[in-house]
């Protein structure tokens, strides 16, 4: 049994955890939910020893323990399966499993590979993975790597007395439906060996897997629910502290688009390396959602439209004019804005402040003879900070330090202020909490009303259905089915899924 009593944590004056009590019994699966900023990640870090609490105690089987490093926690049987995969890609699977714990396999200074491989096979068998332990990790699929991570944590079993506590931090975010099912069945099968703390933004998964659910809000546990008595709506209500209205996706503000005005047209375009043939039209004011499983080829379509990939065949027309030069700078000049999934990598230049980020793609509008007009830049930034209610102390704030939702708003402001009227959104709400999501949905409606055409890859199917005018279901790179999504006549999840797989 693993228990936290009255855990307190402050970061430079901010009270992050306010007397959290948390208990997990042997073999139990606990769901941990909360909005971004509710204190989930701090709580997890305290559990696996990356951060130390300011007050309160951690008890393992009734004994008070102190974790100074993750290694201390591992020695007590607490292991973490990281959200960003923590396997080192150039090492073999077995080396990853026993990284930092190679000693039992060393004789006279030399590692005995055969012995290590044998031990690794034992761990891999626990998660039902039949691969050669000498495989280089980078050659595995994401799902296989996730299982190897789990095997790595399970290897603690032989090193510690008592049961394991394993933290799963958003383990499903990169997995497909089948792979998620596989992971869940493995986790269920492992209950006799370990208890699990499962953190996810996807409440349906939390409900499906957990026994009990801890809801965190503003650094405190607001409710502990029995999963079989809970529903998504009740959890959401506890997380946000109010009812999530049926107007979540702002469907009341979905207006018909302008059928006369085609902003973007793909005419039998072949995407690089796909050998496919994609045709679509995007109208002014339309939200066009591309849905499909991971790897079905949605992102390459966006990247092609944005000029990052050159189509193998076919024509791409922007406002009726065929495009013959493919580069992001050319696309930007023609009014295309791209909001990538990896905000930190492609969307935001961290280290640069808000106004610098906003004018990054339209610098030439703010220069005279190569000299920047900073006053005008700041004015623009203040204007958009107000328009999108971006929460920043000033336009001088470093964008790298903003929350995900606010970063997303800065990126949107960048494109909108530059006059882009074709906006490509790749998972715009990924990793955002519910409040920030609602802001993003409202912004999408605002843009539609202004006649902007939007191509959306949504984070969930519900989101795609709720937000879009039109849905294209993509499978193996090709558009398999079109759906019309007028309010009141939206397709169901089932309608979409049967064309996706």
């Amino acid at each position, binding site marked *: 049994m693993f228990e936290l009593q009255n855990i307190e944590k402050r970061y430079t004056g901010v009270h992050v955890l306010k007397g959290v009590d948390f208990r997990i019994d042997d073999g139990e699966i606990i769901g941990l939910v909360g909005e971004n900023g509710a204190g989930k990640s701090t709580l997890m870090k305290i559990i696996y020893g990356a951060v130390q609490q300011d007050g309160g105690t951690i008890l393992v089987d009734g004994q008070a323990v102190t974790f100074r490093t993750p290694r201390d926690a*591992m020695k007590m049987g607490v292991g973490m399966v990281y959200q960003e995969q923590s396997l080192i890609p*150039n*090492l073999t699977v077995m*080396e990853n499993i026993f990284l*930092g714990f190679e000693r039992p396999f060393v004789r006279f200074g*030399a590692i005995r590979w055969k012995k290590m491989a044998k031990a690794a096979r034992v761990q891999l068998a626990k998660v039902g993975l039949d691969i050669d332990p000498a495989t280089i990790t980078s050659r595995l699929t994401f799902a296989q790597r996730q299982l190897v991570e789990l095997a790595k944590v399970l290897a603690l079993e032989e090193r510690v007395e008592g049961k394991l506590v394993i933290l799963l931090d958003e383990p499903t975010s990169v997995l497909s439906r089948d792979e998620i099912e596989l992971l869940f069945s493995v986790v269920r099968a492992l209950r006799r060996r370990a208890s699990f703390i499962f953190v996810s933004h996807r409440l349906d998964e939390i409900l499906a897997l957990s026994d009990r659910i801890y809801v965190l809000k503003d650094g405190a546990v607001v409710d502990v629910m029995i999963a079989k008595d809970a529903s998504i709506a009740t959890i959401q209500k506890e997380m946000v502290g109010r009812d999530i209205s049926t107007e979540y996706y702002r469907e009341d503000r979905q207006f018909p688009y302008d059928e006369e005005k085609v902003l973007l047209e793909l005419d039998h375009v072949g995407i690089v390396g796909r050998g496919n043939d994609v045709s679509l039209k995007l109208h002014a004011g339309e939200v066009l959602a591309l849905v499909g499983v991971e790897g079905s080829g949605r992102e390459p379509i966006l990247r092609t439209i944005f000029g990052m990939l050159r189509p193998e065949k076919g024509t791409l027309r922007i406002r009726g004019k065929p495009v013959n030069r493919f580069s992001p700078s050319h696309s930007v000049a023609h009014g295309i804005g791209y909001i990538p999934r990896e905000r930190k990598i492609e969307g935001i230049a961290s280290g640069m402040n808000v106004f610098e980020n906003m004018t990054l793609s339209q610098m030439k509008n703010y220069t005279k003879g190569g000299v920047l007009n900073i006053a005008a830049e700041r004015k623009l930034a203040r204007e958009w900070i107000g328009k999108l209610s971006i929460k920043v102390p000033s336009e001088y704030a470093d964008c790298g330090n903003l929350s995900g939702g606010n970063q997303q708003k800065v990126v949107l402001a960048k494109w909108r202020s530059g006059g882009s009227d074709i906006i490509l959104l790749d998972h715009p709400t990924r990793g955002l909490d519910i409040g920030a999501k609602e802001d993003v949905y409202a912004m999408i409606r605002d843009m539609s009303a202004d006649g902007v055409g939007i191509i959306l890859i949504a984070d969930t199917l519900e989101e795609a259905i709720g937000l879009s005018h039109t849905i294209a279901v993509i499978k193996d790179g090709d558009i398999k089915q079109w759906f019309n999504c007028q309010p009141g006549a939206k397709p169901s999840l089932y309608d979409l899924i049967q064309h996706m797989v």
Partner: protein
Amino acid sequence: MNRFLAMETLRKWVPLLVLAGLCLFFTAMNPHFLTPRNFARIAISSSPVLMVAIGVTFVILMGSIDLSMEGTVAVCAVLFALTLNALGGSIAGWGWVAIPVALFVGAVMGAVNGLVHVRLRIPSFMASLSLGFVGIGLSLLITGGDRILIDDPLFRSLLTVRVGGFPLMMYAALACLLVAWFIQDHTTTGRNFYAVGGGEDLARASGLNVGRLRIIGFVLAGMFYALGAIFAVARLGIAETETGRNFMFMSITSVVVGGTALRGGEGGVWNTLIGVLIVNVIGNGMVVIGLADYFQDGVLGLLVITAVWLSTDRRSLSFVK
């Protein structure tokens, strides 16, 4: 995926193919290239560089860089020669102590390098470059700019005695290569170099003491520089500040050309062996076919760029800094 794997496998063998291609090319240009005497010459010029290149391989595997080899080699060479001469001038007598002394000096210089890099948090590039200059200065201070002659016939037998047409030096160098390979592939330390190079933060999260590993890496590198210094002295019979000259360019070129990735985590000492041979075959071959030696540096420079360009799939990198 399969095409990707095939490319990867091919890329792994490119250095060896290049080496074979070069040998064929120079043989076609001048058949004298393909003689045992000439190969012995290549072996002699390769041995010291191989040691230094192996040393820096360990550091590069961790994703760091060490540019201190010229200073370290100079100091080790000079102190080795001084110790040898002071202790009777022959490794048959007490002079053998000079060998562990040189290794110890190399290890200490590596440790200083590693400590400055890890404890003071100075990028390895800057720390090692600066300490390299310190080493050169130190060796000048010790010698006052003089040359130290070694005329111990037993020590010089590394060069003069030949077995199967090749000098003893080459066999000694190969033995050291085997030791390096053992460290790299069969010890926890060696494997952990790959872990650090593959993902330092991940390695740290697994409980590895990355700082200590880095220092160990630099110490190992320093000891191999010392071996390089000993071979260099054996080859010329002279120890001076100039002994360290040109090792930086030659060793880093060799490592890179051999296919060890500068970002760390990929490659190893066998790659370095191939790289050293490529570099020395080019140097030797150009002399054999009668090109002026200033061509060498130019060709080697272009070779490095080609090797780095070939070594990774550039399309998968979105940014290059």
